[in-house]
């Protein structure tokens, strides 16, 4: 491995919202920069850049990830889901529907991140109870709503999506 300097760009092959995609990316490029600046998927928002606020949450191979501090070079071989990939045509994902119904948004800047976090949670743990919902969603910040409607929305989505689990959670 010694001798030649480490490359500063690498080719990644991934699936983004169901579409295969191959790109040469700088190692310094974050997942959020890849999505927003190179793929035009601006639904993913960046705010705290410290993995605290969750606005930039996307789902990579089923796991919630802070796209602002994850490197695009790590996406090689993965499947990435962003807020733009949730709806099936005109049909919204149950989590999106629940956020609309529960009036769980105001300015909307945190909304994609909350929705992706809830999608990851309910994918990992369909029958998530109140404690589980609070534990997961506590990792996202909202400055507008005071959270109560967001908790209601995720609870509503959880009840609609029913029990069942990806199997590696509890």
């Amino acid at each position, binding site marked *: 491995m010694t001798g030649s300097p480490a490359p500063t760009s690498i080719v990644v092959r991934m699936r983004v919202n169901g579409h295969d995609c191959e790109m040469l990316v*700088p190692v*310094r490029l974050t997942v959020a*920069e890849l999505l*927003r*600046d190179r793929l035009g*998927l*601006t*639904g*993913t*928002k*960046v*705010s*705290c*850049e*410290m993995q*605290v*606020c969750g*606005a930039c949450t996307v789902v990579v191979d089923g796991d919630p990830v802070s796209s602002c501090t994850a490197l695009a070079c790590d996406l090689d071989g993965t499947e990435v889901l*962003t*807020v*733009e990939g*949730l*709806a099936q045509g005109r049909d*919204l994902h149950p989590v*999106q529907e629940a*956020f*609309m*119904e529960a*009036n769980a*948004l*105001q*300015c*909307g*800047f*945190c*909304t*994609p991140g909350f*929705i992706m976090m809830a999608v990851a949670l309910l994918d990992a743990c369909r029958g998530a109870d109140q404690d589980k919902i*609070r534990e997961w*969603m*506590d990792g*996202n*910040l*909202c*400055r*507008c*709503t*005071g*959270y*109560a*409607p*967001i*908790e209601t929305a995720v609870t509503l989505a959880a009840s609609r999506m029913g029990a069942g689990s990806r199997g590696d959670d509890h």
Partner: protein
Amino acid sequence: MTAVPRSDAWEKVTGRARYAVDMALPNMAHAAVVRSERAHARIAGIDRAEAEAAPGVIAVVTADDLGDLGRRFGHIVPDHAVLAEGKVRYYGEPVAVVVAETPHEAADAAALVWVDYDDLPALTDSAGALASDVLVHEQSYTEPGQEFLGVAPTPSADNVAHRNELAWGDAEAALATATTVVETTATFPLVYGYAMETYNALADWQPGSLHVVSTAQHPLMVRKELARMFSLPLAAVRVEVPYIGGGYGTKSYTKLEPLAAAASWASGRPVKVTTDVEAAMYTTRADGAVVTVRTGFDAGARICARDIDIRFDTGAYADNSPLVLTKSINRSFGPYRIPNLRVRGVAAYTNTTPASSYRGFGAPQGALAGELNMDMAADRLGIDPVELRRRNLLAPGDTIIDGKRPLDADLAADIDAIVDALDQHAADRDAADRDAAADAGVRRGRAVAVTASDAGASPISTAQVRMHADGSVTLLVSSTEMGQGSRTALAQIAARELGVDLEAVAVGQSDTRFTPFEWTTGASRTTTVVGLAVQAACADLWDNLRAKAADSAGIPVDDVVVHGGRLHLAAETLTPAEVIRRWFGADAGEVVGVGVIRRDGVTEMLPPFWEIGAVGVEVAVDEATGEVTVEHLVTVGDVGHAINPDLVKGQDLGAATQGLGIALWEEMIYDGEQLTNPNLIEYRVPRLRDTPRRVTSVLAERGDGAGPYGAKGAGEGALNPVPAAVAAAVGRAVGVWPTELPLTPPRVWSLLHQAEPGP
């Protein structure tokens, strides 16, 4: 009216809603800002050769490169340097802008700009600044006679950014003869509003025109400042504001727009400037305050005088703080009968992030000491604090400030609603089968606080409704949508006035080239003031439709009657769409109505409305850790009429939650010259698991507002009294009155230990 869903919900849950940070223009370049690493220093030199030679760099811009452009902005005091010139006044101040082809290249090159500083003594607290010979600003920027909204700038000297006073009667004499005098001093922290979309601006300068897309709450105020900076006519400056990712007043007035515009002018390219949270914390914060309240009571526990001193820490530039200080003065003494009053306020320049508007606009600062003082007084007088307030509250129609609108709210009824809710919670708790162990080591306290704010700002607003050939409507206003739901609520008003379905009303985004004049989007004014403009526009539209119906039928206009969303002529009844199509002679055309609000009619008397804040809290304090849990929060949305109840409740809970953040967690901490917590790990804001265990949201709809259907504004009211209420409740729980916020666990622990000296 009704809780219809938000019109922006689909866009926002699908990620399709556009914010300024999402916008791009062809051939756009990117900026990185070089920020000061000193709080106060002369700029000895800037070496930018290395940066200019770096890959992708188009321009490096410093104050020396601004040519004929205006160097400073500031709508009240034009003191705010676009780029630091000669010296820097706070850590994080923009010194240079590097414009490059990509954000990476701009950032890499910005690290190669070397600034030499000669340090000056840094003034980092307001008391020290007022006593110091060192000046943050060596010159005064104001012209005699200049004023903004009735606020005349104070010529700066001795680090005074602004000074103001409000008085009637003889407070000093009345306090000397009062039966009881109670004094309270409370410190309100430096807080950062943390709108999650951090400040950003995209500017495209071309000869004779300037186009800016930004996070501005007040696009027309920004247009005015940019027009002055570039010596352009107002019409040549276009400020476009898509959805805003949180505002809360922190995006009021001008922020990054001059920097982006200067970078575009200097580079000849459209340029985008963004901030991270750290840079946003260096852009604007709220005024910190130390407030002392002395209240005199007679033998019947009635207030005979209040004497209040307010000292603001306003930071390096005045921005909107002179107005915030003036409002803080008006909002500090509370909606009580006060025969003798004196409030003196001073805003001090310091070498810290400039302060400006934040939700509540001076009210939370004043109310912290003012309302805490009422609780302390109640204790001293041996009266229940709610009873003390009831005894002194103003009644509907009473004068709060001479010459201003009389009180348009029933505060006693609001307080009754709070007390009922707090009692209900206590009863439910006592009735529940409770584990005694859960109560061990827990102390409880509850408190009520109330505020009245002269809100609504200047009642200048214009709305335009364009009815199309099918009867549907496009509503144009320059009010910005930052989550409060104005597009939804204003569409509801238009739909009701025009008798059309809500789905038939489209509301455009704010864009000064296309949407009509609006003073600001702040001071909780939109539903009331813009709502009135929308109503007026709809009335104008009906007049125009009547005229066209009469014209088409060849009858006098008086023979056309509007009723039930239809135009009734002697021979027939027409829908508006039929009138339009008939008049144009085609399935085409449109009819426009324009509504204008100024200081006239229902909005002649200022303020347009008094915004009420009325809340109750019950807190639990963990004796071992000092952690405070809000067990119950009660808000009263005294809004006259809720156009959309869900939106009002959303505003109330959101505002109250920000109040809880200030009360319990939020504080920008300076250690010497530098902010020690410029990130969300250490600047802690309320999280989901901090939310009150129970929330009671009451809507008081008494139709007593000047707005549409008796509406008054919401949005700030529920924040204003919360810090005071939490401070009083914690004080009751621990037995010592807090003197400063936030009430972090170690601070509460320290209060607990003051109450009971340790073994």
